[in-house]
């Protein structure tokens, strides 16, 4: 059975139920085979901090952590995520207590339009978990999977360096 989705495509009715830990909470996601993790997070779960950009694994706006590893959530099928631990930007810091990465982005002015920022922050969390004191070259190399179209890369690299200082 198919239902017509908001954008006119043929979207099959949700037929699969998977249990995923999202930001430490057990969540049951009802999805169709083709739903990406990005779509499942934004629509049924309402976690809209994860942004939809290129949708083909290039821009990094949709970056989340899956079992601690940086992932383009547009390139993973939600139906294959059962039992995984997913961390989105909503699981990093709070409005009252910013994560040090978020605070550094604010302090160094590493935000322009802000659309790419959640993806960058999540990627930086993954980088620092792997490598707590990255060199500038390592920061730049790791952030290959995130694009800032305002071209604020220099400030973003400074923000990451500031966290590790």
């Amino acid at each position, binding site marked *: 059975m198919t239902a017509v989705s908001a954008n006119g495509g043929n979207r099959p009715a949700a037929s699969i139920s998977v249990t995923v830990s999202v930001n430490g909470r057990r969540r049951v996601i009802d999805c169709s085979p083709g739903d990406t993790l990005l779509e499942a997070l934004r629509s049924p779960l309402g976690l809209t901090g994860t942004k939809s950009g290129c949708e083909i694994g290039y821009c990094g706006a949709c970056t989340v952590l899956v079992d601690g590893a940086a992932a383009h959530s547009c*390139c993973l099928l939600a139906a294959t995520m059962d039992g995984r631990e997913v961390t989105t930007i909503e699981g990093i810091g709070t409005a009252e207590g910013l994560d040090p990465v978020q605070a550094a982005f604010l302090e160094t002015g590493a935000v322009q339009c802000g659309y790419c920022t959640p993806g960058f922050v999540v990627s930086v969390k993954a980088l620092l978990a792997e490598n707590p004191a990255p060199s500038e070259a390592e920061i730049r190399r790791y952030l290959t999977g995130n694009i800032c179209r305002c071209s604020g890369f220099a400030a973003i690299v400074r923000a990451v360096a500031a966290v590790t200082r």
Partner: protein
Amino acid sequence: MPAAAFELERPESVSEALDALAAEPDARVMAGGQSLVPLLTLGLAVPPVVVSLDRCGGLADIEAGPDEVAVGAMVTTRRVELDAGLGARLRLLAEAAASVGSPHVRNFGTLAGNLCHADPGSDLIPAALCLEAELEVRSAHGRRRVGVGEMIDGPFSTALRPGEMAVAVRFPVPDPSWRCGYRKLVRRAGDLAMACAAVMVRVEDGAMAEARVALGGPLRRAVRVRGLEADLEGVAAADAAGTVLGGTWMDDLAGDLLPDATLPVDYLTAMLPRFTAAAVAETLGAGP
């Protein structure tokens, strides 16, 4: 969201996966999904069934034998990049793996999936060609081994038959005396290669006793450049770049060039020899 609906199968064993593939000849296998999910989203792949290997046991191992390393179909590119044991024996492969996309892509994308996707700009195919890797291919009816060079027909096209899937990539372990190098040309970090070269050279008494060179990027498929390899053999290491630039080996590639509006034939025929000369020189400079 995919352009067309499909059914998703998540078999728990290789034999279940092979049964699913036997039941639907147009099914597509999904390993890490880092190429297939974008293709589904773009409508460039519209399979009726996707067989995901994510729950399939026994495919995520690296088996290191005395003469051969077997990399299971679900081993990620990130693991190929970072596994110390594998890196010590197949440094060229680890170096090429580190050049694939971004950490995000490498965390989930797999070596076997990258090879079977057969993108002309793949980093891993030229490395696999130089290392003379073979795919271990299975179907419900049997198994066979096929060289990576024989497996790839053209852009995104392989000689895998309906019902077949790669379960592992097998690499003969090269003697440690080989020097190796990987060079990639891109406009933006993380892109597929505009050009890429994998090089292996064995030097004896200051001259190249054996050379392997594989090129990818602006070609229908990555290839071993046999004419250039023959030109390099016996040449003093110091004369390598001149030999690459002075050879006629580019003529053999003429029919395989994939020019486009931004990379016309004139550019490719001028760029590839210089790029390849730099890759060979860099490899020789890297030491054994």
